[in-house]
């Protein structure tokens, strides 16, 4: 039996016990007290893995590509983990997590770990606890962590904040130049992959994407020369893969590596800094709310919310009043 004590679970997971690791991930998903205790121990040990987001429309081949990436990376010996997210039903809360169907199980290879997660009502493409799950896997020694999003549309850009390197998949003939020019998902890509490269039109789709992305690259260079410090558009590489055969996958893995090496480390990396901030603000927000909705403040908080519902108080004044109520020591 697994220990229920968080410290013992963490020790086992760090020692290579995959069941203990799986149980910690369950605790993280379910946001139990074990999860917080484990994450407090594991976070300082994380921070060395390469977090790669894989996103794109449903059916573009994300899971198949993830499987092909695992095969290529394992040839080099690095340990790989996957967090694959599928949507939860807004009606029943249930989910069908089908990403493993496209992935070989790598049964018997302890250096491959695949975990499915339901989005549980979260809308950004990942699950609310995906970043925390990645930190656990990172601490347990996985060098490459692939975060596979739900099938995305045009604006689920959350993965770009969660990952060091974001790969956006496109399928051939999914749209014209105007589609490639729209704001959103393509803009957050560090690497754009046209998958299903054996289909007619793959080369043309890649050329169109390159042609359209050149414009934003040029805009970025102009701003750089002008010392314009507004955020600059990225300069994504556009690659063609056929995940089912593995064609183009070694080139993709090499591109991932190049992107990883080109990044500043620690707090100098704006993406890492932003991710750290987002995590802390999110926890702080949850805790503020718990503080205000719990204990002796509960009734006073409810009265403020009622006043807003009755339009007797505006929401800004209400927020100010609630913040002020936290400063009183007798709360």
């Amino acid at each position, binding site marked *: *039996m697994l220990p229920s004590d968080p410290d013992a679970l963490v020790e086992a997971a760090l020692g290579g016990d995959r*069941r203990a690791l*799986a149980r910690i991930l369950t605790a993280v998903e379910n946001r139990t007290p074990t999860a917080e205790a484990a994450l407090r121990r594991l976070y300082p040990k994380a921070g060395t893995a390469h977090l790669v987001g894989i996103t794109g429309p449903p059916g573009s081949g994300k899971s198949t590509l993830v499987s092909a990436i695992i095969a290529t990376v394992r040839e080099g010996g690095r340990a790989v983990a996957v967090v694959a997210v599928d949507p939860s039903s807004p009606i029943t809360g249930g989910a069908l997590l089908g990403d*493993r*169907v496209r992935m070989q199980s790598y049964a018997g290879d302890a250096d491959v770990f*695949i975990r499915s997660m339901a989005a549980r009502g979260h809308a950004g493409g990942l699950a609310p606890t995906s970043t925390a799950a990645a930190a656990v896997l990172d601490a347990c020694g996985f060098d490459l962590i692939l975060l596979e999003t739900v099938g995305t549309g045009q604006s689920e850009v959350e993965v770009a904040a969660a990952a060091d390197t974001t790969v956006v998949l496109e399928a051939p003939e999914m749209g014209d130049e105007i589609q490639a020019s729209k704001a959103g998902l393509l803009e957050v890509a560090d690497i754009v992959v046209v998958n299903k490269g054996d289909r007619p039109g793959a080369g043309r789709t890649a050329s169109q994407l390159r042609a359209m992305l050149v414009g934003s690259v040029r805009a970025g260079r102009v701003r750089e020369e002008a010392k314009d410090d507004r955020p600059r558009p990225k300069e994504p590489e556009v690659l063609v893969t056929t995940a089912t055969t593995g064609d183009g996958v070694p080139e993709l893995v090499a591109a991932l590596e190049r992107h990883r090496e080109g990044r500043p480390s620690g707090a100098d990396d704006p993406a890492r800094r932003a991710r750290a901030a987002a995590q802390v603000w999110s926890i702080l927000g949850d*805790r503020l709310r718990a503080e205000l909705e719990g204990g002796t403040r509960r009734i006073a908080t409810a009265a403020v919310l009622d006043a807003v519902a009755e339009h007797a108080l505006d929401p800004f004044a209400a927020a100010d009043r609630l913040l002020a109520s936290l400063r009183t020591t007798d709360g």
Partner: protein
Amino acid sequence: MTDVRAAPARPLKVLIAKPGLDGHDRGAKVLARGLRDEGFEVVYTGLRQTPDMVVTAALQEDVDVVGLSILSGAHMTLVPKVCRLLREQGMDDVLVVVGGIIPDDDVAALKEAGVAATFGPGTTIGEVAEFLRSNARPRG
């Protein structure tokens, strides 16, 4: 990373796998979909899984239930092997259920091997869901 202290009720997590070589996955797919509609989180692994693959998936996903769908007649070989591998991994608390064509004469032996229930043709999704809710032990 949202606050892990805020704890909502969690759905049960079920692995639906088809070990062995028969290609009849209609039942497994219908059940996977049906349990989704019953509010379960269902991990579906697809066809032609070896017992090793099933147990690896169950372990990594930390599921509460393993549901095996077999129509090939190989259940007396495959099911006890899955149960034994689960036990070897210390996963005795995972509920194992089997669906498919299981002759009545084999049911006792399968239960002996560690199977909690077998579901034959005519079983409703609601019956399966009810059994899992009453018998699975949620974790984490």
